[in-house]
């Protein structure tokens, strides 16, 4: 059966006057949404514009366009902040953490949301706990712990804590999503001769794509922007991640904003790409639903 996107179904039965009213209302709504979108986009725009300004202009006329576009802000920031290498490190750490979070998170979510066992409540409780802790208070214990594990100053010293701290959100979001899926699905699959792993890979993972995409966006943002862990657990210059480069341009009493804004502009691009990429995945569920319908 062919399904048209629900909102677009034309209302043929309504009379002319209410159609005009509807038309007006929808235009007003669109206008309002557009205005709202522009307001929320503004900080990004402001960041990009500011990144081409001199420090004088940054303070003197914060909302104006730069009189001279200072492209060298970018080259200088790139060089001084060591952004090239840091960027690569951030990509490695964020992507690996994300893969691990998604795999473990989805698996755990599947188990706690679809299967029954004794310590389920207790495990869920543990995961809630992890969402509540202010990460700064874990710095010293984690530092000592990872030192004794010998993983300090490696990618693992970021990937493992990142994954661990993102797991609760992943589990909760995916589990909440899965609970609203009818159980008959996997019962049918079970009869078809799939084991639990088969159900997980063939039924649950494809089903959970929208929730996984959500987790990916949130997780990536957090990994990409983390300052506290990256500051403390990494010592080798060669392994430093991007957030450290972004705060380099300050002497404690003042900040060189032209360079900071340029570096931030570079750093923000991958997060936008990730968002746009996974936003489509969130909507995939809809397409699948439409086909089923």
């Amino acid at each position, binding site marked *: 059966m062919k399904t048209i*996107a*629900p*909102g677009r179904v034309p209302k043929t039965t309504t009379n002319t006057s209410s159609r005009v009213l509807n038309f007006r209302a929808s235009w007003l709504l669109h206008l309002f*949404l557009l205005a709202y*979108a522009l307001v*929320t986009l*503004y*900080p*990004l725009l402001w960041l990009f514009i500011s990144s081409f300004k001199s420090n004088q202009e940054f303070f003197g006329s914060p909302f104006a366009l730069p009189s001279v576009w200072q492209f060298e802000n970018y080259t200088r920031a790139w060089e001084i902040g060591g952004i090239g290498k840091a960027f690569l490190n951030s990509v490695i750490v964020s992507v690996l953490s994300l893969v691990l979070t998604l795999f*473990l998170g989805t698996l755990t979510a*599947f*188990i706690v949301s679809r*299967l029954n*066992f004794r310590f389920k409540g207790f*495990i869920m409780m*543990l*995961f809630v*706990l*992890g*969402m*509540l*802790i*202010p990460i*700064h*208070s*874990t710095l*010293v*214990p*984690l530092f000592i*712990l990872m030192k004794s594990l010998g993983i300090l100053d490696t990618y693992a010293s970021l990937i*493992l*804590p990142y*994954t661990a*701290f993102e*797991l609760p*959100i992943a*589990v*909760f979001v995916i589990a*909440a*999503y899965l609970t*609203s*899926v009818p159980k008959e699905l996997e019962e049918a699959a079970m009869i078809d001769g799939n*084991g*639990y*792993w088969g159900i*997980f890979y063939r039924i649950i993972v494809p089903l959970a794509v*929208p929730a996984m*995409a959500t987790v990916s*966006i*949130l997780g990536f943002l957090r990994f990409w922007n983390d300052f506290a862990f990256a500051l403390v657990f990494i010592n080798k210059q060669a392994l430093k991640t991007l957030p450290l480069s972004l705060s380099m341009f300050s002497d404690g009493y003042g900040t060189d904003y032209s360079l900071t804004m340029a570096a*931030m502009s570079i750093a923000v691009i991958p997060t*936008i790409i990730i*968002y*746009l990429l996974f*936003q489509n995945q*969130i909507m995939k*569920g*809809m397409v699948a*639903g439409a086909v089923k*319908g």
Partner: protein
Amino acid sequence: MAFTNRLRSFIIIGLLPALTIYLLFVIVPILWSAYYGFFDWKGIGAARFIGLDNYAEALKDPIFWRALKNNLIIVAASILGQLPIALLLSLILRKSTLFHRFVRSAVFMPMVVSSIVIGLIWGYIYHPQIGILNVLLEQIGLSSWIRDWLGDPSINMYSVSAPVIWANIGPYLIIFLSAIQNISSDVEEAAKIDGAIKGKWLYLIVIPMIWDTIKVAIVLCISGSLKAFDLIFVMTGGGPAQSTELLATYMYNNTFEIYRYGYGSAVSTLIIIISMILVLGSQVLMRKRGME
């Protein structure tokens, strides 16, 4: 029998890696930090066991309570502001048209921009002399409404709540969006045929169907709001005179600025306990509502 054995081994093997990492890197540090809370320790040198003194001191400190109150304002603002707006937007913006995708992306963008940038911009909005807000109020003839938005302790918590809500709608929007994907179009069609008008459709069908997701969003809201401080810190530095102090800044200052590591750890444990109470409370409330 074989069936349950297989189930059990699947559960154990499936949970083991996640639980191992989680226990090691989250739960152990939490307990460890709670343990530090029993000591009078500067973070350097010798530590002295003082039992519950740190906890008692925090509970006696008026600043701690003020920070808690401020945090509750943020929690309330988030739950009452972010969630409804995000839910509404997710219903309006759930199509794949270019316009919807554009607006959705735009709403999310404050999230990808650093708090420093958001804080700077809102700083200019609230700026006491050249602030856009005050200039605007003056121009529309509401000069009497002009305030020192960030400096006046009687209103500044509300002033800082606005950007917090505004900047953090994005995550809830995508969480709700993904949950709504689950409501198959047949349900929606059925509702249409039944003649359910939009408002009713929302209350009768959408909210019950994504109730679990809403519950999770509330937990996220509470935990996020209790930990969040960077945006507010950029705007006010917790001041003036600690009027916008939050639990997280209070903890951070004691731990890393004032050299009271043990006390900071105790505060952090209290933050977890308070959050836990709030989360459990909210879940109990929601369970009742959900049954209605």
